[in-house]
């Protein structure tokens, strides 16, 4: 019976091998104009904090924080309705509407926001597309399904909102916030298309370096940063969950 686990572990091992290759490249010297790499170096990580890129790292942190807060506020009412509605029909509908964007795919969703934020539907009083505002709207929309599901799972069946429900749903609030922050920190299609090259987050820097400049070691260092932040946040989440378990 235990052996049945082996193929799945093998799949994850392949995945881990790809991440190991990433880690290896992040400490290898980049030779401009070549895909070959030199010897061991920490220069790629110095690149992460270079003035040229620091703005993008800072933007990433700010946008992730703002996305987390707005997604939390916007998701709570839907999650509350989802967890508390007595009607199975309404719950089904809420769930399908919540999950549909989750499963619609990043390109379709982001393209849709390009249409809305560009002046197709309404003429915006301030520019939205290719600005941080627009990217933020897209990121919040992108995060809401995840946030709603995590909140709904945590919202209790007790009927006193401020004194009981909200405190009891705190695990969901914390989990949702950590996960949404982590996801947003490495968001790619939303800032790529809605930012139009003017707003760049870490993942966009990774793509620029890897696919346009062929600087894989430099890109690997930024990807390691995104990975490290994600894993640190999720490890924190794991510790919180373990601390709370009876």
């Amino acid at each position: 019976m235990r052996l049945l686990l082996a193929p799945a572990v093998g799949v994850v091992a392949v995945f881990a091998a790809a991440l190991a290759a990433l880690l290896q490249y992040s400490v290898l010297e980049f030779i401009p104009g070549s895909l070959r790499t030199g010897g061991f170096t920490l220069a790629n990580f110095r690149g992460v904090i270079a003035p040229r890129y620091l703005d993008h790292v800072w933007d990433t942190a700010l946008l992730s924080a703002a996305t987390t807060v707005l997604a939390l506020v916007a998701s709570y009412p839907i999650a509350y309705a989802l967890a508390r509605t007595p009607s199975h029909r309404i719950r089904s509908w809420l769930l399908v509407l919540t999950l549909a964007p989750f499963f619609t795919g990043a390109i379709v969703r982001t393209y849709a926001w390009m249409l809305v934020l560009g002046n197709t539907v309404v003429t915006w009083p301030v520019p939205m597309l290719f600005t941080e505002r627009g990217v933020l709207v897209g990121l919040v929309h992108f995060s809401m399904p995840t946030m709603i599901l995590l909140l709904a799972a945590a919202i209790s069946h007790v009927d006193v909102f401020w004194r009981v429900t909200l405190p009891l749903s705190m695990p969901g609030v914390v989990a949702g916030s950590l996960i949404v922050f982590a996801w947003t920190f490495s968001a790619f299609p939303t800032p790529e298309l809605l930012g139009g090259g003017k707003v760049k987050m870490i993942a966009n820097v990774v793509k620029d370096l890897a696919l346009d400049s062929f600087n894989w070691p430099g890109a690997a260092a930024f990807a390691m940063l995104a990975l490290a932040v994600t894993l640190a946040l999720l490890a924190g989440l794991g510790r919180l969950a373990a601390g709370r378990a009876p």
Partner: protein
Amino acid sequence: MILRLAVVALLAFMTLPTVVVIAVSFNPTAILSFPPAGLSLRWYANALTYPQFQRAAVNSLVVTAGAVLLALPIGTAAALALERGRLRAPGAWATVLLSPLVVPGVAAGLGFLIVAASLGLLQSRAVLVAAHVALVLPFVVRSVWVSVTNLDPALERAAASLGATPARVFVRVTLPLLRPGLFAALLFAVVVSVNEFVVSLFISTRVNEILPVAMFTYVVNYTDPTIAALSTLFIVATFLVMWLVDRVVDLSAVFLHHR
């Protein structure tokens, strides 16, 4: 009442982009307008006849079929082992199997790119299939696991005590009882793989790119509503799949079930 209004408004925010895409896809001209000035199917025709989309659609078909056919048996075996394997720490193993979900797409994508380049597999679909298997596996494991938890072992013991061989018990009793979970796993795996973009972007060339990657390139280069038409087809397909899944398994059991 206020809650109800807030929920409706927020749901409108969530669905607004979808509505706009569908409306724009019927736009008669290349200049986007909303609501559309008339009705036309020319962008659907354009989307379906654009050669690079046709090539990408074939790639998507091959990659998704390969990934799903591999992930389904692998994930089902894992779900059975997690529930019944008397593992010392099933929770830890589950975390390992679900871990590809939390790795940033650009990190996994660049990692696979480096591996693919060192193996000389940059133009092949094999690396795409390998990456997709890892990315859909968490969904398969979770969906099937819910069904395994609900499975009554007494039914299998009854079959065995009536003389069925273990293989026969598995094929005639266990698998049929897991059908809802397997069906949900199949549909989730297809939906996730068909829509996967970030990892695939890194390991794609013009030769082996899948549809979302081709759509991304098109969006970057052109502004006409062709992508709106293609997106509408994706949205309709996704809704059909979600509706089907919800009929077969309770979606809240898969997504709100905390264990």
